[in-house]
C-alpha cells in the first residue's frame, strides 16, 4: 500500500504521527514515545527532521521555533557492539561522574501551556508518573473526579518512562509479595480495562546467585514466596541452563526461578491511566511546575504552580525521586535520595530470551523486550546520591562486560541507545506512604527504590480505597514517614538494578 513513511526503521507513517497529534501528543518527546519513531537502528537520524516538519505543519496552533526541540541525546552515535564497550574498561574504585545529559528538555518552559490551571480541586496529585496517574484513575473510578495531576514534564519523562519494565513477585517481604501479585493481576487485565496494549509477557524471572550469602538469600526468600503462593523454585546451574540455554552461568552457584514473573512495556500504562482518568474528568496538566505551597493551620490550602494557584483539600506527593525537593517547598524533610541508574537497549533481535535474567550479586539484569531489544542495566555501587540523569561510557563498559560474561553471543550485538533514570531510595528500601506528621492533608506516595512501576497498580488501588473510605490499611500505617523518627525500619533486600 502507498504509505508515506517518516521513520522507516520502525515503519512509522505520516498518518500515525498525525494520529498522535490528534491524541494531544504534540512535542517531539511525546510523539517519539507514542509512535515509536526515532527508536530504531538509526536513532532518529533519518526521521527527526521529517517529523519536526510534520509537527510544524499539522499542529494547531503552529508550534513556535522554541517549542520544536530535538529529542535528548541517546548515546552512542552509531550502533556499537557490546564487545567493543566491554573492551573500554573502567576503574571500579572510581565513582562515576557527570555524563551525557540524557534528560535535557524534560521541563522546557516553552512547552508550558498558556492557559491557567484549575483554581480549585479536591485532590491535587503532584507527579504524573504511574503512581500519581494510577491513583487519579482509582480515585475517579471510585467517584472522586475533582482531581488535578501536575507534572513538570511530558508523560513518561520520569522514572515511569525510563525503567526496564520488569514485573516480579519474587520479593523479600510479605507486603511486597502481596502487592506485586495484585499488580500482576491488574496488569494482566490492563488492556481490557484501559483499552491499550501493554505487551504483558510472562517469561519469568531467573535470579542468579554467585556467592554463598546470595544463595542463602534466594533460598530464604523462595521459602517465603512459596508460603505466599508464589511458585519460586531454587535451581541448580544445569537446571537454570535449561531455562536459558545460551547462558554460561559462569561462577553461578544456584538460581531462583519463577515462571510467572513478567516483563511489560512501561509507557502504555502511563498513557492508559492518564486517558481513563481524563475520561472521568480528572485534569492532567503536563509541563507544569510546582513552585510552592500555601500553608494554614497545619494544612496545605493552596498549591502554587507556574500556571497559577490551586486551592485544594488534599495533596498527594507522588513525584518519585523528585519528591524530596517538592516536599521541601512545604517545609517537609523526606529521607529519600535520588540515585542514578543507567540502562541501555540493543538492536532488536528475533526472540530467543524468555525470562528476565538477573545476577543478584552484581545487580546486572537483562531481558528481551517485545520488540526484540535486549534491555538491561546494572547498578553502580560507587554511584553517589543526587539527581543526575547523565549517561556514561563507564556504565556501558561495566554492563557489557557483565552481560557478555553470562551471554557471550551478545558480544556482537550492538547497543543502540542508553539513558538513565532515578531510583527513589529510602533508608530501609521500603516506600513512604500515608500521612505527613505536621501537615495533615499532605499524603506521601513515594520511595519505591526502583520498583514503583510494578507496585503502582496495586498500591494506587489501596490508596484510593483508603482515601475514600477512611478504613484503616496497614500500608498507610506501617510505611509512614514517621517511622524513621520512631526508628521502625521495614527492610527489603531483593533490590536489583
Amino acid at each position, binding site marked *: *500500500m*502507498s*504509505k*508515506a513513511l517518516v521513520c*522507516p*526503521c*520502525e*515503519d512509522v507513517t505520516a498518518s500515525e504521527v498525525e494520529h498522535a497529534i490528534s491524541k494531544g501528543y504534540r512535542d517531539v518527546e511525546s510523539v517519539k514515545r507514542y509512535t515509536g519513531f526515532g527508536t*530504531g*537502528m*538509526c536513532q532518529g*537520524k*533519518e*526521521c527527526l*527532521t*521529517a517529523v*519536526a516538519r510534520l509537527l*510544524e505543519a499539522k499542529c494547531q496552533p503552529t508550534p513556535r*521555533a522554541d517549542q*520544536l*526541540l*530535538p529529542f535528548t*541525546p541517546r548515546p*552512542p*552515535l*552509531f*550502533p*556499537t557492539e557490546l*564487545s*567493543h564497550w566491554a*573492551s*573500554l574498561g573502567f576503574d571500579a574504585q572510581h565513582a562515576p*561522574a557527570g555524563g*551525557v545529559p540524557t534528560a535535557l528538555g524534560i521541563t522546557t518552559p516553552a512547552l508550558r501551556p498558556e492557559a491557567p490551571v484549575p483554581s480549585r480541586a479536591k485532590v491535587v496529585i503532584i507527579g504524573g508518573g504511574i503512581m500519581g496517574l494510577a491513583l487519579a484513575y482509582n480515585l475517579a473510578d471510585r467517584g472522586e473526579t475533582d482531581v488535578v495531576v501536575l507534572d513538570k514534564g511530558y508523560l513518561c519523562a520520569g522514572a515511569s518512562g525510563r525503567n526496564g519494565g520488569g514485573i516480579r513477585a519474587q520479593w523479600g517481604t510479605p507486603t511486597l509479595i502481596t502487592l506485586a501479585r495484585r499488580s500482576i493481576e491488574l496488569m494482566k*487485565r490492563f488492556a*481490557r*480495562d*484501559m*483499552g491499550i*496494549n501493554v*505487551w504483558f*509477557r510472562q517469561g519469568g524471572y531467573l535470579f542468579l546467585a554467585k556467592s554463598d550469602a546470595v544463595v542463602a538469600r534466594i533460598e530464604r526468600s523462595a521459602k517465603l514466596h512459596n508460603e505466599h503462593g508464589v511458585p519460586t523454585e531454587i535451581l541448580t546451574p544445569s537446571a537454570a541452563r535449561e531455562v536459558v540455554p545460551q547462558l554460561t552461568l559462569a561462577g553461578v552457584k544456584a538460581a531462583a526461578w519463577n515462571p510467572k514473573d513478567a516483563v511489560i512495556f512501561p509507557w502504555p500504562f502511563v498513557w492508559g491511566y492518564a486517558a481513563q482518568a481524563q475520561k472521568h474528568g480528572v485534569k492532567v496538566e503536563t509541563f507544569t511546575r510546582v513552585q510552592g505551597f500555601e500553608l494554614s493551620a497545619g494544612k496545605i490550602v493552596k498549591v502554587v504552580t507556574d500556571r497559577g494557584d490551586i486551592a485544594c483539600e488534599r495533596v498527594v506527593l507522588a513525584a518519585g525521586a523528585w519528591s524530596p525537593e517538592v516536599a521541601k517547598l512545604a517545609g517537609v524533610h523526606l529521607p529519600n535520595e535520588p540515585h542514578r541508574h543507567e540502562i541501555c537497549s540493543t*538492536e*532488536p*533481535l*528475533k*526472540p530467543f530470551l524468555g525470562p528476565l535474567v538477573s545476577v543478584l550479586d552484581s545487580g546486572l539484569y537483562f531481558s528481551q523486550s*517485545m*520488540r*526484540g531489544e535486549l534491555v538491561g542495566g546494572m547498578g553502580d555501587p560507587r554511584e553517589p546520591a543526587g539527581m543526575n540523569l*547523565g*549517561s*556514561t*561510557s563507564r556504565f556501558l563498559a561495566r554492563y557489557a562486560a557483565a552481560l*557478555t560474561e553470562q551471554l*557471550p*553471543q*551478545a558480544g*556482537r*550485538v550492538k547497543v543502540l541507545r542508553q539513558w538513565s533514570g532515578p531510583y527513589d531510595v529510602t533508608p530501609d528500601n521500603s516506600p513512604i506512604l500515608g500521612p505527613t506528621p505536621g501537615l495533615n492533608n499532605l499524603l506521601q506516595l513515594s520511595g519505591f527504590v526502583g520498583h514503583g512501576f510494578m507496585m503502582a497498580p496495586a498500591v494506587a488501588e489501596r490508596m484510593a480505597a483508603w482515601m475514600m473510605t477512611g478504613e484503616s490499611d496497614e500500608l498507610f500505617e506501617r510505611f509512614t514517614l514517621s517511622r524513621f523518627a520512631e526508628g521502625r525500619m521495614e527492610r527489603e533486600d531483593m533490590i536489583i538494578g
Partner: protein
Amino acid sequence: MSQRLSPLTAPITLDLDGETIPAREGEPVAASLIAAGELLFSRSPKYHRPRGPFCLSGACSHCLMRVDGVPNVPTCRVPARAGMHLERQNALPDARVDLLRAADFVFRSWFNHHEFLAGVPIAEDVLQRVARKLSGLGVLPEKPAPGRAPAVKEEHEVVIAGAGAAGLAAAKRLAERGVTHTLFEREREVGGRLLLGLDPDAPAVWQPASDRLRAGALVVGLFADEARPFLVTVEKDRVHVIFYRALILALGGQPFLPTFPNNDLPGVMADRAVAALIRRHEVLPGKTIACVGDPAAAEALSSVVRKAGGHPVAVGAEPLRAHGLRQVDAVTVRTGDREEKVRCDVIAVCGCTAPSFELARAGGAKVAWEPRAKTFVVEADGQGRTANASLFVAGELTGPKSAGQAAASGVAAAEAIAGGAR
C-alpha cells in the same frame, strides 16, 4: 539498469542468499549489490515492505543485512571481501516473496499497535504471541565476538572530527598556524562531500600529513564521565578513548527522508548517495534518474548524472508519489501547477540534508529549530564557538552550506583555536 562506470578488473565474489555477486574488493558491499542490479536489501520491520539503500552514509536502516553471521550490519559501511556471506533479513520465506507483506495490505495506512485488539479476549493473547514471534530484526549471532584488545587511551591537543569540506579546511589552517592537531575520519579517504562533485565552489581536496590523520576511525560517542570530556572511536575493531584540549566537530549533514507516499521504495536514494555511487564507487545506480526536490541541489546532481552517461529527469520537481512494486519504476511530480508521472529507475531526493547535531548536543552545545532551513541546527558564533568552551563546530552542523561556505567556517573555527593558543 545499473552499470559500472569502469570495468571490473580482478573481481571477487560475494554470496547473497546463495546467489553469486561480483564485486570490487574494498568497495562498500551496498555499492557491489547496486552495481549487480540488486536493490532489494531487506524487508521492513512491521509491514514487510521492500527496502533498498537510501543514504549510503550509515545514517539510515535501509541497507542492513546479516553479514558473515552478524545481524543488522549497514552494508554501506562494510568493505567487500571475497567470499562474504550476505543474508537479507526479516522475511518469510524470503525477501523476494515475503508472505508477511500481507500486513502492509491489511493495515492500509498504519497499524495502531496501542489499540489493535486491546482487551479482546483470546484475540489479544494470540496477538501478543504473534507479535512476539514476528518482532525483532535479525537473529542473535551464533558465535561470541572475537577477543577484543583493551581500549587505547590517547591524549590530544586539538581534535577535528570529520575530514570533509569544513574539517579539512580547519586542519589545513591549524597546520599553517603550527597548532598540533589530529583529524579523525570514518572513511578511508578524506574529502567527504568534496568528492561528490555537487558543489561548484568546492575547494580542491587537501591531503593532510599522514601523522595528523586517522582515517577509518568511527566516532561513536562524546562522553563526559571522567574529569575531562572524551571521544570514543572504533578503528580497525579496536576502541580508542580520545582526550582533547579542544574539539572541532565537522561531521557534516545526514540525509533525511522527505515525506511522500512510497518514499521507502528501493530506488529512492539521497542525492549524495547517488553522487557517491557515481563519483566514488563508479556505479551508475540507474539509467534514468529523477532528480527531485530542491532545485539547486537537483541541478547539481543532474549534471553529475549526465556526465556519467545517465539520464536525469524531473529535475527540481516536487515529488508527490513513488511508483513501483518491488522497486521504483516511476515518480509522480509537480512542476508549477502541472502534475505528471515520469518513468525512472531511481528517485534521487535532493537537498534533504540535516545537520549531524547529535554529538554537539551531547557535548553541551545548544541545538535549536531553524525555521527557514526547517532543520535542527547547532547554535554557534561566527567562529564556531558553542555553549561549551572546548567544543567548536564547523560546516553543516550550523545549517545548510555550500562546500565553499563550509570550508570557510572550518577556517574560522581553526583561527578561533589558533588565536587562543598564542
